[in-house]
């Protein structure tokens, strides 16, 4: 069992309407871990990520993320996590730079850090002044990543982070995940690109029917750390 758990879910049930999207999840994720969520479509991976972000209420069981009890106050954890979902969370009419600066300021971060975040995701300078609705899907994903990185989240929640990206972009995502873990952040991500995701993760958790079906546990020490990523 990991020390200093960042995520502690015990019998966590989350409902959307009457439907249980999480049906008694037991999961502990430790500080600095990179955990891959795998499972078929509709298994509950996205719901688990959104629950950890404090976006879906936990109706029974216990759920603590970054020390915040999600059943008591799920809003307080939100500023501490970064969620990259299927959607980009960007304003189409604003430029890439405007978007990253806006989300930096919205998260009480110096907007001057936006340029550094865009550098890290390899967003070309000429693209930064282009409205987001004129960018390609891959470029939008990069801007979305920059908007997440700039908030310096302690917990990264990534839903299909490789989707819509070319090989260079996927390598970039892997590198960012490794860097985040090396810097002390915890990463929980769902991916169908299993070969690539498995190489990045310290641990794999299978989700089936809204519950944990299998947990590989931490990998041997030689596979952990930031130096084994692309």
């Amino acid at each position, binding site marked *: 069992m990991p020390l200093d758990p960042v995520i502690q879910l015990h019998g966590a049930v989350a409902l959307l309407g009457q439907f249980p999207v999480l049906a008694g999840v037991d999961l502990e994720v430790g500080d600095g871990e990179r955990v891959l969520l795998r499972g078929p479509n509709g298994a509950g991976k996205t719901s688990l990520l*959104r629950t950890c*972000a*404090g*976006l879906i209420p936990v109706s029974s069981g216990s759920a603590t993320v970054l020390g915040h009890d999600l059943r008591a106050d799920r*809003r307080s954890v*939100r*500023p501490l*996590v*970064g*969620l990259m*979902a*299927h*959607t*980009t*969370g*960007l*304003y*189409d*009419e*604003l430029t890439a730079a*405007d978007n990253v600066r*806006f*989300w930096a*300021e*919205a*998260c*009480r971060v110096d907007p001057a850090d936006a340029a550094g975040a865009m550098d890290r995701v390899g967003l070309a300078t000429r693209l930064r002044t282009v*409205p987001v609705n004129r960018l390609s899907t891959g470029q939008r994903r990069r801007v979305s990543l920059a*908007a997440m990185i700039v908030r310096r989240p302690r917990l990264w929640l990534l839903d299909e982070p490789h989707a819509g990206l070319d090989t260079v972009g996927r390598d970039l995502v892997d590198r960012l995940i490794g860097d985040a873990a090396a810097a002390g952040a915890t990463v929980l991500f769902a991916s169908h690109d299993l070969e690539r995701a498995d190489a990045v993760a310290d641990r794999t958790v299978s989700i089936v029917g809204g519950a944990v079906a299998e947990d590989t546990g931490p990998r041997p020490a030689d596979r952990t750390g930031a130096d084994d990523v692309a």
Partner: protein
Amino acid sequence: MWHDVWLVCRKDLRIEARTRVTLNHVAPFVLTVVMLFAFALDADTTLLRRATGGLFWVTVLFAANAIAQRSASVDRPDGLPDALRLSNLSPAGMFLGKTLSLFLQLTATELVLAVAMVLMYDVRLRGIALILASIPLGTLAIAAVGSVYGPLAAGLQGRESILPLLMLPALAPVLLAATNAFGVAFGTTVGPGWRWVVMLGMLGAIYVAAGTATSAALLEET
């Protein structure tokens, strides 16, 4: 919180500057309405003059409906509601920022509308102070209501017809007070005009307070 107010307002105004929806769609709309009323009532300029206050504020309400709908819709696509919930922005700051941006866009629209009405309706202004006091107060009340109901309707099917059904009844007291204040200012109605201005101020304060108090729930539910 004021940081959040300004940040959200600046973002909305920047989007408006890029898309020019108010400039290209709402301003021509209000000018068309002014012209249509002039065509409909031009045989009787006295009637047109007497009705100017009401026509002004009815047109402002229709314009506010369009601007509020647009203002709410920019925060809807591509996961933006979740991104806003995950930010450090305070719900009250977001609400007040939206209200401020709506207020500024509506004020610009009212300026266009007022100039057009003065030119086309041969309006004689007597109580300019009454007008200058009632416009910002009435606009604030309208902007606050638009910032509450705009996001609420934006997530619903048939939002185009639902928003006016929600907004317009709530704004009926504003229409009444503002039209009467204008009537006194134009000399078409007699009575204590400043009482209507006080009523507008109270309505504005109530709507802003109610919007601020419900902003957290509004953010979660929309």
